[in-house]
């Protein structure tokens, strides 16, 4: 494990691999010192945001170095299934031309993988899901991002796939769309967390219309 200051009110910890980062983040939240504001896990790094009026950087380092990390406290839960209508795509042809696969093979490869939420960010609730199967890796971002990507759009680029929870500009290759609501910031609805497993399931247009606007869970 290494730790370094990220400015003077955050410490960036690198516990090892992605799973180690999730376990370290859980231990940090569980420890819950009074000065702790936020624990953000992204890939192999953990950001510890603290109240710098209440604790010094040196004391946060000491706390981080003495933190006892046990195996994940979270019980293994089944993957969250996100239904996707792959007919509602904009960039399947681009992915086909970069990968050399057929459109059906692209969809099958995207469906055939269980992903892990490695980070949440860019916009509130945007899940970075990894890693794509080898055959889908390496498709570059659009050379010029779209000014508006619709909520629910499922994109991929590099080794990642993800779902735009709210309308935003974006440059990922859009291969489908989910009708489900993944985030409601005002209501505090954020069903996905770093470390969770996610799969995609295929739905048709009729099912998309039927499910449109319902929440991911509950």
């Amino acid at each position: 494990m290494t730790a370094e200051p990220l400015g003077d009110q955050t410490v960036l910890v690198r516990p090892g691999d992605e799973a180690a980062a999730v376990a370290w983040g859980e231990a940090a939240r569980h420890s819950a010192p009074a000065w702790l504001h936020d624990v953000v896990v992204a890939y192999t790094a953990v950001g510890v945001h603290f109240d710098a009026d209440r604790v010094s950087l040196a004391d946060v380092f000491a706390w981080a170095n003495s933190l006892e990390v046990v195996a994940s406290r979270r019980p293994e839960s089944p993957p969250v299934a996100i239904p996707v209508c792959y007919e509602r795509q904009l960039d399947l042809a681009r992915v086909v031309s970069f990968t050399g696969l057929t459109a059906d093979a692209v969809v099958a490869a995207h469906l055939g993988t269980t992903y892990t939420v490695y980070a949440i960010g860019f916009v509130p609730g945007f899940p970075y899901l990894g890693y794509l199967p080898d055959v889908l890796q390496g498709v570059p971002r659009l050379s010029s991002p779209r000014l508006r990507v619709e909520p629910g759009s499922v994109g991929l680029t590099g080794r990642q796939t993800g779902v735009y929870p709210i309308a935003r500009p974006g440059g990922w290759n859009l291969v489908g769309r989910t009708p489900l609501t993944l985030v409601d910031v005002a209501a505090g609805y954020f069903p996905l967390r770093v470390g969770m497993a996610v799969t995609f399931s295929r739905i048709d247009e009729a099912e998309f219309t039927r499910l449109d606007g319902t929440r991911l869970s509950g």
Partner: protein
Amino acid sequence: MSLRVESPGLFSLPVGLGRPGRRALGVPAGGAADRAAHTLANALLGNRPEAVTLEVTLAGPTLTADAPTACVVFGAPFELAVAGRAPPTAGTTFTLRRGETLRILGTPAGVRGTLAVSGGFRSAPELLRAGDLLDCEPSTAAGRALPFVSLRPPGDVTLRVLPGAQADWFEPGALEARRFTVAAASNRMGVRLLGDPLPRGAGRRASEMASEPVAAGAVQVANDGAPIVLGVDGQTIGGYPRPAHVVRADLDRLAQLRPGDGVRFRAVTVIEAEQAARAAAAELADWCRRLAWAG
């Protein structure tokens, strides 16, 4: 009672001191961009630091009171107007009478002002729109004034920085050697800087990184070599390398950077950063104490 929004201004946002706790979900802490201005505006009216104020940007809103309201505009020295009487002065408390309309105009320096009312606004923090009602309590104010803490001498602004997580990706000293100017496309999410692109060091030209947690003050350098300094509404994770990080004592100064302003960076140690933060906090607390006694 309330203030009615006749026109919302360029970007007017009810703010408090920010709400940490949701960064892991991608939600930045937010809150007042210039925290000292927000805190002092509240102190001038006897409010607690966390009372909700209205942050106004470059061109302020027009607001009509339906009951007497004790107000003050602080932060950048915005020009104010109330029809039929001498204009109130930013930095001095005044009572907006029933039926009067306050126009918060422009500012010759800085970017952001803070409108505080006695007791704070009671409405939810969302971007202002015409027709909105800003709920607050009836009140009157004696004229109290404070010199502007946000005013600074003319010339370039120097921001103190700690090394960033990817400091070794860049030529040592290159950031500190440059002068940048603030781009118009700057906001609460980030301040974009224009200038001589910051070159990557040897062996780092093609490096890519996974997204990592970031924080307000992070200096990110996009692939075109242009730095962006993240603000209070900045993203919670970022995938661009960061040569430096602006210390928290200078984040209010960052929030008042105006398009066209000159910016330089100066490297400091963690000890210097913590001393600067303590000194700034002590000065703010001192002003708040004096205002509490005077009240």
